[in-house]
Structures are given as structure tokens and as C-alpha cells.
């Protein structure tokens, strides 16, 4: 409090002195500060700076400087045991490269996921560590496997993941002209992987087409547990409160209502996202966000729009139940939804 009071005094003296002609300021301050030369020095040096600072900060920084540039490429460099060969893509918080083990007899291709954007931000680094923990606990053919972790010489943490050569699930289905039953089979594979994660107390939270690749032989693989969080091991699934950081990253088109409103997530949150995925795969349209633009509109629609039935009989019931606004009314597990989709 004493410090705050002192600053108030400095500010008051500065304001008053600044209104005086320059030649009267010294006398004013000598009188006003009396036996506090330190305060007098502070005010005088601020006044001196004020003389020169007229145009300083006169205009705001332009946003042309704003667009985030990609972090420096690591292509051609060595990171840990791996040689980086090509850039595969950018995520919200990381860059993914194709790399090979550089010191090995066998040439194993891997995906190297390097924390790039905002590496200086502690919350992102913490989330990255959380992802490493989560992935290490999962072992399922439908989930990209974690092979190694480390920190690059530049201080960027990285994950080494099984490299999946495949196509985004929605593109895969369209390119091959898959019939509804084959599309449902893919979604059931996804549900099996999600069920495995749930059994390990992990809710993915960001299931969407770009996070699911299908290999040439038709195996669906779930990627990117970037915003997945461990749910509390002591309580029931979903009772864990959202941490501050987790709410900052969400994909409006695939978020469940409880995510968008900042309420607790549960396995039913992933069920919702798979419901959106299934609806998209079967109809080519989004259940709620059709024609909406911008995150605000998409999220508003999430609460307001009831998905239209697709005229597919029993499938409509599954879609309807997985896309309920209230998580308690959805399927309570990925397995339950997979079973409802039939053998």
C-alpha cells in the first residue's frame, strides 16, 4: 500500500508540475518534495522524459505485423536421433515434420511434432508435456503411437510419433465414393480408438476430420491429442474441472455445447464430435453450422439449431442421440454408440 500511495503522490506532482512553465517547475518541486529528494528526482526525470516523448506511442502498432509467421523450418536439420526431411503441416501449437531415424540400420519414418508457436509460453509447454503423458498411456492400432520425446537444441520440446501415411477421413470417403455402410465402418473404427482412450481416462476433446487419417488399407487412425486432458483418476470421468488453458483451444465446428460454454467435458463430449463427423460423412452437411460464418455464429448455432433428420431411419436415431445438447442424454460411451450403429 505504501508503494501505491507513493506512486499516487508522484503522479499528482507530475501532473501539477507539467502544467507549469518549465522555469517554475524546479521551485515548485523543491517546495512540494521538501525532504524527499528521491521523489523529487523521480518526478524530474519523468518530466524530462515527457519533454521528449511528445510523439512517442502516438500511433498504435499496425496489424500488418500481426500474422504469425511460420517458425523457422527444421527441414534438413538433425533433431535428436532424427533427420528432418519435410514439413507435413501446422497445428495450433506445433509443426509436424516427416523425419527418419538417422543413426539406425533400418530407415524408420516418423512424424516429428515440434512445439513451435508460442514456445515461450509456459501454458503451451505444459500442455505439450500433458500430451506426452497421455500418449504414453495409450496403445491402440487406431491411435498414432508415441515413439520418443525430447527437446531440440533450440529448446523446443518435440514428440516422435508413428508416421501415418493416409488421407483425411472425409476426403478418403469421398475420393473412394464410399457407400454409407463403409462410412459407418470407418466411424466405428474411430469409436473403438476413442473407447480405448476413455478406458485410460483420456477424453480427446478435439475429434474432427483433420485429426483422423485413413491408411491405404482402410485403417482409421486418430491423431493429435493436443488438447486432450487427463480426467481426474479419483473421480468419475468428466468430473474434473476445466483448467484455464484448456478452454482456450477449441474447434467451433466440432465442439460440443458443454465445451463452448466452458462446462465440464466427459466421454459424451467425444461422442458429440463423432456424431458431427458421422453426420458430415453421411450427408455432406454440418448438423448445426450449415451456412453460418465466423466462430461466434457457429457457436451460437451449436446451442440453437436442432440437426435435421437425414431420412435414414435407425441411423437418424443414432445421430439424434449422439448430438443431444445435454451430454447426459447422449450415449455415455463410445462403445454404446458403436453398438447402436450395428455390427
Amino acid at each position, binding site marked *: 500500500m505504501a508503494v501505491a500511495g507513493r*506512486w499516487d503522490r508522484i503522479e499528482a506532482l507530475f501532473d501539477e508540475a507539467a502544467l507549469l512553465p518549465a522555469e517554475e517547475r524546479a521551485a515548485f518541486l523543491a517546495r512540494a518534495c521538501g525532504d524527499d529528494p528521491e521523489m523529487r528526482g523521480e518526478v524530474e526525470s519523468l518530466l524530462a522524459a515527457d519533454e521528449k516523448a511528445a510523439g512517442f506511442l502516438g500511433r498504435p502498432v499496425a*496489424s500488418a*505485423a*500481426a500474422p504469425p509467421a511460420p517458425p*523457422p523450418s527444421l527441414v534438413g536439420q538433425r533433431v535428436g536421433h532424427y533427420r528432418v526431411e519435410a514439413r507435413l503441416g501446422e497445428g495450433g501449437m506445433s509443426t509436424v515434420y516427416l523425419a527418419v531415424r538417422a543413426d539406425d540400420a533400418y530407415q524408420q519414418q516418423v512424424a516429428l511434432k515440434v512445439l513451435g508457436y508460442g514456445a515461450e509460453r509456459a501454458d503451451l509447454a505444459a500442455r505439450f508435456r500433458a500430451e506426452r503423458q497421455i500418449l504414453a498411456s495409450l496403445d491402440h492400432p487406431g491411435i498414432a503411437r508415441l515413439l520418443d520425446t525430447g527437446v531440440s537444441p533450440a529448446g523446443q520440446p518435440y514428440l516422435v510419433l508413428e508416421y501415418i501415411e493416409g488421407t483425411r477421413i472425409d476426403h478418403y470417403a469421398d475420393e473412394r465414393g464410399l457407400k454409407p455402410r463403409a462410412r459407418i465402418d470407418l466411424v466405428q473404427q474411430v469409436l473403438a480408438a476413442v473407447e480405448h482412450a476413455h478406458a485410460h481416462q483420456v477424453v480427446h476433446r478435439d475429434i474432427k476430420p483433420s485429426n483422423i487419417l485413413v491408411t491405404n488399407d482402410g485403417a482409421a487412425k486418430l491423431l493429435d491429442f493436443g488438447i486432450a486432458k487427463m480426467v481426474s483418476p479419483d473421480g468419475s470421468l468428466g468430473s474434473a474441472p476445466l483448467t484455464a488453458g484448456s478452454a482456450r483451444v477449441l474447434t467451433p465446428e466440432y465442439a460440443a455445447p458443454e465445451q463452448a460454454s466452458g462446462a465440464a467435458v466427459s466421454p459424451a463430449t467425444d461422442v458429440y464430435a463423432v456424431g458431427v463427423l458421422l453426420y458430415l460423412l453421411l450427408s455432406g452437411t454440418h448438423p448445426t453450422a450449415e451456412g453460418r460464418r465466423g*466462430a461466434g*455464429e457457429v457457436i451460437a448455432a451449436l446451442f*440453437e439449431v436442432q440437426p435435421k433428420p437425414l431420412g435414414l431411419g435407425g441411423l437418424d436415431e443414432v445421430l439424434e442421440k449422439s448430438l443431444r445438447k445435454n451430454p447426459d442424454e447422449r450415449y455415455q460411451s463410445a462403445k454404446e454408440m458403436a453398438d447402436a450403429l450395428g455390427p
Partner: protein
Amino acid sequence: MSDESQSDGTLRDEPRHDVTQLLVRWRGGDDQALDALASLVYNELRRLAGRSLNHESAGLTLQTHDLIHEAFLRLIGQRHVDWQNRAHFFGIAAQMMRRILTDHARRRSAVKHGSGRRPLVLDEVPDPAADGDAGIVAVDEALGELAQENAELARIVELRFFGGLDHDEIAAVLGVSDATVRRRFRIAKAWLYRRLSGRGA
């Protein structure tokens, strides 16, 4: 959520009220609402800022102020909005803009200059806005120090420099008079100038 629609007289034509609701919830002390709000605003600004990159080569420069107004229109709309909600939105947006701009500048200057940071040189007419990345990073850091001394002074500069808000808008965000904003911005500038020109670099 139907309460607001009903009191509004319109049931369907209310696609954006979730942001307004989040603002109301936040003002009621709900920190999770602030998180969700910050996330929405951050993403929207990032998207809009990213788009302006395409115009950069054409010499067109979008100002942060325009970006924030555009984000406001997109997320909340032109409908009647309580001025306090509007002010709070601008306050959050300026903070998010500071984060976006500083993260970007820090990353880019690290690319250009290696890990060593180029000290900011203040010339006769110092203008960190024109000084590029080094200027932005330096102001961000000095602001952090000013916030230790007096948080509201730092907030005023944040709203002005990173948010592009004018004195009236800043006054509305902080709930103080226009004259107070002008007066306090002056000493904040002097403090920062001294910090950046003297011992700083």
C-alpha cells in the same frame, strides 16, 4: 438462453447472443466465461490478422482498431449492445491483440537476429509502431514493468498502443473520465520513454 431472446422480442434472429451472454457472465464474476470469451476473441482476431497478411504485399495495412471492430461485428453484431459489454469486449480484444502481436514479433525477431535481441534505438521521433518487431517486444516488456508500478497505467497504454482505442473508448473500458485517460497516458508515456531510452537497451 431463451430468456434473453424473449426479452429481446426476437427468437430466431439472435445468432450472436452467446458472446453477449459470456460477457454478462464474466461481469458477474464467472472466470470460465472470460476464458471462453478470450478464446473466441483470440481465434477471431488471429483469423482476421492472418487474412491481412495477404494484403501486406499490396501495401494495405489494416490497423488493430479496425480488426477489433471487425471482430466485434462478427462476434456480437450491430444490434443494440449495452455499452459496458461493448467496452469489456474491447478491453479483452486489446489484451488478445497484445498477445498476438508480441508473440509474433518475438518469434520473428528471433528468426532475424538469432537468439540475441536487438536493442531498441530511440531516435528523435521514437515510434515503436514503425520500429517493427524490436519496438513491439520492447514496449511489451516495459509495459510488464510498468504494470508492477501501476497496473492501470499499463492498461491504458495496452488499450491505446496494442488495441488502437482512442481516449473515449479507453475511458469507457476503464470506467473513468476522458480527462483522466489523457492525463494518465501522458505520465505512462514518460515512464516508458525513460525506461526504453535510458537504462533499457
